[in-house]
């Protein structure tokens, strides 16, 4: 089997994997017995397992914190008799934070989907099973549970798990607060659309893509929480996604319309041809590329 293709992981994780690989090689070239070599591999695999567990805790914390922010905001909106709170100006940066946390979940999904970590965990499980007789029962049970939890994360449904948690939270919010929360989120989305529309297309493609991702993440959250995202704003968001149709997030090439189509298919009755949009964008871009490059160079030199 192929060992890994998890090229999105950071240097630390990759280094640990390389150490494991080297260890396996050296074990095979050495005079170790099969059993000793397997034990050696298990010990080294556990280093990479540590990183996966750290990821798991990070994901859990991110989901918990996102829920907490939404819960606190709804609690705030239920205190109307004490405060005159305007949804237009009330803690938008906390919604920014929720969007950033969900963006991280989305990236981790993309990482796990493109990596062979699932097979890697399965291999580790097989190796551990062979040593079952030598390991304490409780420790073995805990380890198997942990591996099972990690397998669930590696399915690529982390973002959906976060959304499901928010939907579950919806039942605990009072209807009046929910209505206020809805208008608060809608204003936030409209503000995002307005600010993105003010970007200069040539520059923002490279630098201000986070806002585009936040917008799409919040459309998904809004649609799942309230289920009635209006067509006008959706059209504006789709136009923005067409304008910024190939966003690079770390090492991942990301498209907003594909993301929306995957996470809120109900919003798209007619299918979007992303490839065609990207091709049109490239055709237009090729024509103006030299001119844009000269303009950018001139602005830098000046």
């Amino acid at each position: 089997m192929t060992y890994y293709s998890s090229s999105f992981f950071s240097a630390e994780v990759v280094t640990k994997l390389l150490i494991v690989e080297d260890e396996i090689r050296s074990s095979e070239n050495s005079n170790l017995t099969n059993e000793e070599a397997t034990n050696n591999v298990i010990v080294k695999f556990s280093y990479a397992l540590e990183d996966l567990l750290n990821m798991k805790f990070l994901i859990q914390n991110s989901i918990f914190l996102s829920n907490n922010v939404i819960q606190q905001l709804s609690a705030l909106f239920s205190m109307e008799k004490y405060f005159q709170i305007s949804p237009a100006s009330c803690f938008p940066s906390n919604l920014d934070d929720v969007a950033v946390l969900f963006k991280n979940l989305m990236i981790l999904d993309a990482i796990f989907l493109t990596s062979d970590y699932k097979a890697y965990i399965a291999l580790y499980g097989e190796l551990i099973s062979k040593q079952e007789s030598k390991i304490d029962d409780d420790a073995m049970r805990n380890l198997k549970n942990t591996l099972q939890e990690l397998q669930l994360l590696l399915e690529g449904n982390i973002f959906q798990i976060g959304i499901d948690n928010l939907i579950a939270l919806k039942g605990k919010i009072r209807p009046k607060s929910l209505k206020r929360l809805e208008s608060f989120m809608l204003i936030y989305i409209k503000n995002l659309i307005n600010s993105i529309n003010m970007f200069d297309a040539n520059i923002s493609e490279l630098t201000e893509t986070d806002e585009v991702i936040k917008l799409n993440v919040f459309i998904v959250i809004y649609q799942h929480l309230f289920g009635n995202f209006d067509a006008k704003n959706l059209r504006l968001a789709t136009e923005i996604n067409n304008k910024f149709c190939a966003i690079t997030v770390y090492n991942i090439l990301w498209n907003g319309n594909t993301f929306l189509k995957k996470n809120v298919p109900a919003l798209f009755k007619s299918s979007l041809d992303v490839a065609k949009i990207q091709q049109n964008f490239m055709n237009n871009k090729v024509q103006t590329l030299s001119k844009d490059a000269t303009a950018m160079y001139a602005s830098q030199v000046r």
Partner: protein
Amino acid sequence: MSFLKDPDLQASETLLRTYGKFLRSYKKNLNDRVISTKSENCENLFKLKFGEDTEIVSVYELLQSDNKILNKILMVFFHLGKEAKRLDNAAGLLFFATKCDVLFVIFLFSRSCHEIVDC
């Protein structure tokens, strides 16, 4: 099982490893520097900037008012925001590849053809 035997490939592999180590230590030092700059006695502090002058004020001092409920609300949202930033930083620093890691990606591709451990 076949491994790399070509001395040229092995040499370039070693070179990439050395360069990788250098980049990793550089990145670590840079991150340490950024973290130490940020965290120097700045725990729970809020930075205000007015033109050229800057003033560092504790959030607890900033939120002193007679309205205890309002103080509490502001503190809650401040800490939620701070925790979110911490998690985002942790994600960025620990898990997601940065530009420095492009070399490792190349390195991985160069080795991805190998078949290892058929259990």
